[in-house]
């Protein structure tokens, strides 16, 4: 009877996902290639670490976008693993729907897809019992009703789960479940997927969410990778986890205050200095320029982007600076401008969020029109 298993746990690779943030088709294609590189890296990791099997806890690919070629390519990667099993549970982005590739494609023999109809797989050689809770549709308000797991002592019991764990909101359309419920099932390890940021807070009770191996947007900053998990059963069960970074690129979303910048050259210099601190050629940046603008003219974010795009994999600028108007002074005036500023400020005081942004924009547009006689917006 096998007493130790070593495996790779990954999830949320989202192969062939669209990337709309770049505004550049080449870059989004490049990012999809990154996803494939990352996935290839994961399969190589299985071989390099001589792991017993590979677990993919949902969202391997994007059902709505994945191409036939990619499906064939994925199967080719699985084939490289030889006899090493690949255990997959469908996620909400690659659910086991009627025309799912999981259904229609003739996958390699080492690929085991755990579905609601057939949620379990027992590997006799490895002595591992796999049980999966995944998705049959794009949304699931409740856990699917499926065959109860057969957790038996003496073998390794692993649960693959794709969904929301311990969320505050009661209603989640993505398999809402509590960690208490999961641990109550009695598995030795819970391979989670769905959330793209890694979470090992519950690793003591065998719950790991590895996050996305490759970040997919600016809301996925930080390190991304997979877990190399070792389960050993001697007198008691022992779990060891090793995080392995797999990402090709990182996202950086930052604010740069340019109040101290007096010239366009100064602005470029400031940005350059900041980018130097990161591996800019490889990574993806979103820079929000903030503060009062002492520059004479508007900031042309497109020109800025063109100036820095060769220095970065991708960079985008957002102009959130404010013109150099003394609103308090203007508000004191008895004329039309004074009344306008007072009225706008009054409205802004009663607004927040996007509404406030909108009013602020309207204020500066109006002021520009009143004071400059025309409105110029750099495109």
């Amino acid at each position, binding site marked *: 009877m096998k007493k130790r298993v070593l495996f790779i746990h990954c999830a949320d690779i989202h192969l062939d996902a669209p990337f*709309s943030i770049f505004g550049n088709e080449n870059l989004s294609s490049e990012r*999809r290639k990154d996803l494939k590189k990352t996935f290839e890296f994961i399969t190589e990791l299985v071989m390099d670490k001589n792991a017993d099997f590979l677990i993919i806890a949902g969202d391997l690919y994007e059902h709505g976008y994945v191409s036939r*070629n990619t499906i064939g390519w994925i199967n080719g990667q699985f084939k490289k693993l030889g006899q090493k099993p690949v255990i997959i549970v469908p996620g909400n982005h690659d659910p086991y729907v009627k025309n799912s590739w999981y259904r229609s494609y003739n996958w390699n023999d080492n690929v085991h897809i755990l579905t609601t109809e057939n949620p379990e797989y027992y590997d006799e050689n490895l002595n591992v019992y796999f049980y999966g809770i995944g998705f049959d549709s794009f949304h699931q308000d409740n856990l699917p009703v499926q065959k109860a797991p057969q957790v038996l002592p003496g073998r390794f019991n692993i649960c693959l789960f794709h969904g929301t764990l311990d969320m505050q909101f009661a209603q989640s359309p993505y398999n809402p479940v509590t960690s208490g419920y999961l641990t109550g099932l009695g598995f030795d390890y819970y391979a989670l997927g769905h959330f793209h940021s890694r979470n090992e807070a519950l690793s003591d009770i065998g719950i790991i969410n590895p996050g996305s191996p490759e970040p997919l947007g600016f809301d996925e900053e930080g390190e991304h990778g997979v877990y190399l998990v070792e389960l050993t059963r001697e007198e008691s069960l022992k779990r060891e986890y090793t995080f392995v970074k797999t990402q090709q690129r990182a996202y950086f979303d930052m604010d740069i205050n340019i109040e101290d910048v007096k010239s366009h050259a100064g602005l470029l210099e400031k940005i350059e200095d900041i980018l130097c601190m990161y591996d800019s050629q490889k990574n993806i940046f979103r820079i929000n320029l903030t503060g009062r603008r002492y520059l004479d003219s508007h900031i042309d974010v497109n020109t800025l982007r063109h100036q820095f795009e060769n220095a970065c994999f991708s960079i985008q600028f957002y102009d959130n600076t404010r013109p150099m108007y003394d609103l308090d002074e203007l508000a004191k005036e008895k004329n*039309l401008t004074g009344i306008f500023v007072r009225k706008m400020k009054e*409205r802004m005081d009663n607004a927040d969020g996007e509404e406030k942004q*909108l009013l602020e924009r*309207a204020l500066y*547009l109006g002021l520009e029109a009143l004071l400059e006689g025309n409105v110029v917006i750099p495109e």
Partner: protein
Amino acid sequence: MRIKKININGFGKFEDRLFLLKPGMNVFYGCNEAGKSTLQSFIRGMLYGLKGGKRSKDGALPPLKQYKPWTAKAYGGILEYELDNGKTYTVARNFDRNTVTVYDEYSNNITGSFPAGREEGIKFAEQHLGLPESCFERTVFIGQMQSILNNEGKKIIAERLANIKQTGDEEISFRKAMEALKEAQLFYVGSERTTTRPLNIINSRLQEAIDEEKEYIRQHESCMDMFLELEQLQKRETDLKKEWDELNRLKEKLARKYETEKLEKVYKSLLNCYKQLSDVENDINAEKEALESTLARLKEYEVFKIYSRNDLDEMISDHTYYKLLCNELEGYESENSENEERIMKIQGEIQQYKLFAEEKPERVDEVIHEVLQYNSTEANNDNTEDKAGQRMKKHASLAGFVAGIIVMIISFVLKPYNTAIFAAGLAVSALAGAFFISSVKTGNLKSDERTQKNIQKQKHQENLGLLNSWMRQVNAGSIHDFIRLKSIFQDKIKQLDDLMIKRQKLAESKNKILINIEEYKKRILIRLTSANIVSGSAFEERDVQKWRTGMETFSMLEQTVRDIKNELASLNQKKESLYREASVIAGHDFGSLTALEREIQDRITEIESLKSEFNGAADIFSSLTPEDMDTRIKQIGDELGHVKLRINTLSTRLENTPDGEMIQKAHERVQILTKEKQEKLFLGKAFDIAMEVLAEASVDLQRNYSPYLNEAVGNIMSTITGGKYRDIRTDDSLRLNIQPPDIAERVIPEQLSSGTADQVYFALRLAAVMLMEKDGETMPLFLDDPFVQYDEERTINALSLLKNESEKRQIILFTCKKREVELVRQIFSDKDINVVSL
């Protein structure tokens, strides 16, 4: 604006009237009902039209009906006016037809260049004066005792004042800023009404991108569905092929089975033929042997060869007749003997009673008759008991008659009288009387016959003696025996006659029979002799029998030979037929039975060989007919064909379906364009807000018209009241409050005298006109007896004010007071005024 010419075709009391007006003061003087109000209404109607419809609530006619010409046929006229810019316009209206035409100074019809309202019609006046009718009638058009403005009038003027353009830097900056914002919004965003602006372009591109994405999604879904279907079809194809192959193998085996069965049938048929042929051959041989022996026997009966079946029948017939005739002859002889015996017997019996032959029969019968008659008569007369009875009857009848009479008498005596008793007495006496009369009559008749009887008795004695003599001769015991014997004698005589006739007939018949017998005998003998059965003239029945047997045997043998020959022919035909059948079954001719036997052996070998090929499949064949199998094979074949076709179709479609990143790129385009659209909408909304707030700010600023208005109203009131009222203020709703001199609190107009209140509102109207026409068209003033409530001083002051006003605007004053005309002439003495008497 100033009115130059008023030409009335027909309007109320006016008909074909022409009024020429001057730029400054124009006074229309006329006493009451001279047509001042009508003329004002004409001017107003020419500018804004006349309202039609129904009567108002107070019963007043609508203007359109009110001013219908009294006499003139045409209802309308012409108004000529000049604007501040020096351009002259002419308006022609026909109120009947509700038509209006506007001509420019070159007589061009420019009616179509003005906006038109559904109710207002062509709005040339609003455009030229800058005032709608509602505002016109509340400002420049001051009717008799109508200076005071109600709340609605104030509201209309206030709104108008709030909308009038400002002057100065603020107005310029507002306008410039609004234009800049509008221009920028149009340039950077656009709107729903634009078509080529950034938002429109983004919307258009976004829609294209959305459509493109939808198409790619559809293709993607379709591709996945096709792939799924393809996978299922390929599996189905494999299953169908397997089943098809299996069924074809089975079909092959089944074909072997059926071939074997066919061969077995052939074998059985051939074997059957063989057996039948063997039997036929045996039968032929047997028949041949039978024919030979029959022919040999036939030779023995060759003597009968000359006879035919008819001869046999004749022989039988002859012999039968011959025998019948012999029997008949015997019968005749026997009958003849019996007849002779009976003749002899009867002749003996006749001899015994010869008396009857000797005596005359008539005499004998007479004697018998008389004796018998006499005896009969004597017997009747000797009956005495009959006479005593006759007497008894007489007595009884008489007694009955008497009794009846008595009863009737008693009936008369009895009281009361009884009819029934009388009737009974009458009936009894009548019956008894009748009976008595009958008894007396019978007694008288019997006594008459007694004399004649005695004569007859003597004759009887004679006859009786004769009869007794005859009776003794024939030994008769009584007369009756004698009569019976006489009758027997007569019968015997008769019988003897009959027998004698019969003897004669029998003799004749016998002779005829003998002749016939000889004839038949002769014919029989000829046949018997020719057959060597008899040689003499006699024959016996057995000879005839022998001839008949011989003849029949000969016939029978002859028939047998024919039958055998027929049978042989039939058998030979059957043999040929069987050989033909075997040839057809086997497919080739057979020369002999041995050859057929060899063929059968070959078939057995072939069948055994075939059977070994489908052994084991028999169970399947039992549950599957060839038709089932063919149907199933056809079904599978058809389905397989469809499946293959569908696989090819799907494969081709899949090959032709692009498989790349189009869908992601389309989605990204949609996302980017959606974001751009949101940014544009955000910007557009920011522009809207900026403009909205700027407009609000401007309105706030405009609301500051109050100081200007207050100042103007104050100035006008000060002029009219000789400086008494200067401080007059209005709020946003044009509510007035006045600071009277020497009073701490401010008052409202209604607290003042009606004349002063009228003057305050006149001042307000004039001030409002002054503000409204700022930067616009200078409007004429239409005043209908405005100074009715004014005192002399204030009238002069007001006219002085109007004199100043007439410097820049046309004033049309209607008055019915001569004094006012004089005052105008006096005050405007240095001016060229136009006074028109109506």
